[in-house]
């Protein structure tokens, strides 16, 4: 009786393994990582602007864009990154129209249109603040390969770990390069200059 039961269990396991193997074999090849295929980063999206109206990424076309994912309760890295982008755009010397600076929140629960709008207004130069429904934000994060994760804070509330890179897109909305916080301003400015070409 016990050995019969054992045999049945084993055969069930074999069947599960076989089905699993077939499913894995039938699966399309996993999408290429973002390092190996740059063309997969980005793509069209629709989020919500600071005026609470839909914001289509098509509105960014026609000039290059620097897109940064952050959250308004981020007192250090996010304003530092946005202030740096504003500075680099000034150093470029072609006015605020030379490149759009876009801030997309990864914390849509706390950051509504009003929050991203007033946060984007802190930098003394045009910055576009975007939010959206959590599902929309998730989709755009996936499009850009952006990671973010809530982390509870000891004193209550939470902070968000998130990708620190800025995505540089050309005038057609195609991904060109990232800016990292570690690289010097000279390298960053050279990358931004190349977008203008």
């Amino acid at each position, binding site marked *: 009786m016990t050995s019969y039961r054992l045999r049945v269990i084993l055969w069930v396991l074999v069947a599960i393994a076989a089905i699993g193997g077939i499913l894995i074999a039938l699966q399309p090849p996993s999408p290429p990582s973002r390092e190996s295929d740059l063309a997969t980063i980005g793509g069209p999206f629709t989020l919500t602007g600071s005026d609470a109206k839909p914001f289509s990424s098509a509105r960014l076309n026609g000039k290059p864009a620097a897109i940064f994912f952050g959250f308004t309760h981020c*007192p250090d890295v996010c304003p530092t990154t946005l202030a740096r982008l504003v*500075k680099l755009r000034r150093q470029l010397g072609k006015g605020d129209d030379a490149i759009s600076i876009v801030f997309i929140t990864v914390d849509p629960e706390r950051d509504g249109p009003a929050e991203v709008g*007033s946060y984007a207004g802190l930098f003394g130069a045009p910055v576009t603040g975007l939010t959206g429904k959590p599902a929309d934000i998730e989709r755009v994060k996936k499009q850009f390969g952006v990671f973010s994760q809530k982390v509870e804070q000891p004193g209550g509330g939470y902070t968000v*770990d998130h990708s620190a890179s800025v995505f540089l897109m050309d005038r057609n909305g195609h991904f060109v390069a990232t800016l990292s916080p570690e690289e010097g301003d000279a390298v960053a400015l050279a990358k931004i200059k190349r977008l203008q070409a």
Partner: protein
Amino acid sequence: MIFRISPLALLLLASCGQQEAADIQLSNAWARPTVGQAPGAVYLTIENKGGEADRLTGAFTDHAAMAMVHQNEVVDGIAKMRMAGEINIPSHDRIEMRPGGTHIMLEGLRAPLRSGDDFDLVLKFRNSKDQTVKVTVTNPEGQ
């Protein structure tokens, strides 16, 4: 943050029979403007001109519900912000808090920080007595 110990200072220290106490001086305290309920971050320079190390153990201000020493780091492209433990301030050395690294986070601000405002921040040390510094709210280009 800069950890630099001047060889001369070490030499002086070594030649001294008895150590002088830590001598903490605070300067260059600033914070960016904030909006809404968002927290703020204060950056400042802590200099220890004394002969003994000290430790920054905490911070408080009347302007916010909580002030916490935070450390930001980028690991594999992911920015993470965590509470820092006590910060060591070696003798004859200085800690310069700069954007993107260590800062004092102000949570629960009584009012958003506005450019041109200033407020007092008190830092607590293990050995030295509390020190107050005036924090200026400013929007420095590109920092």
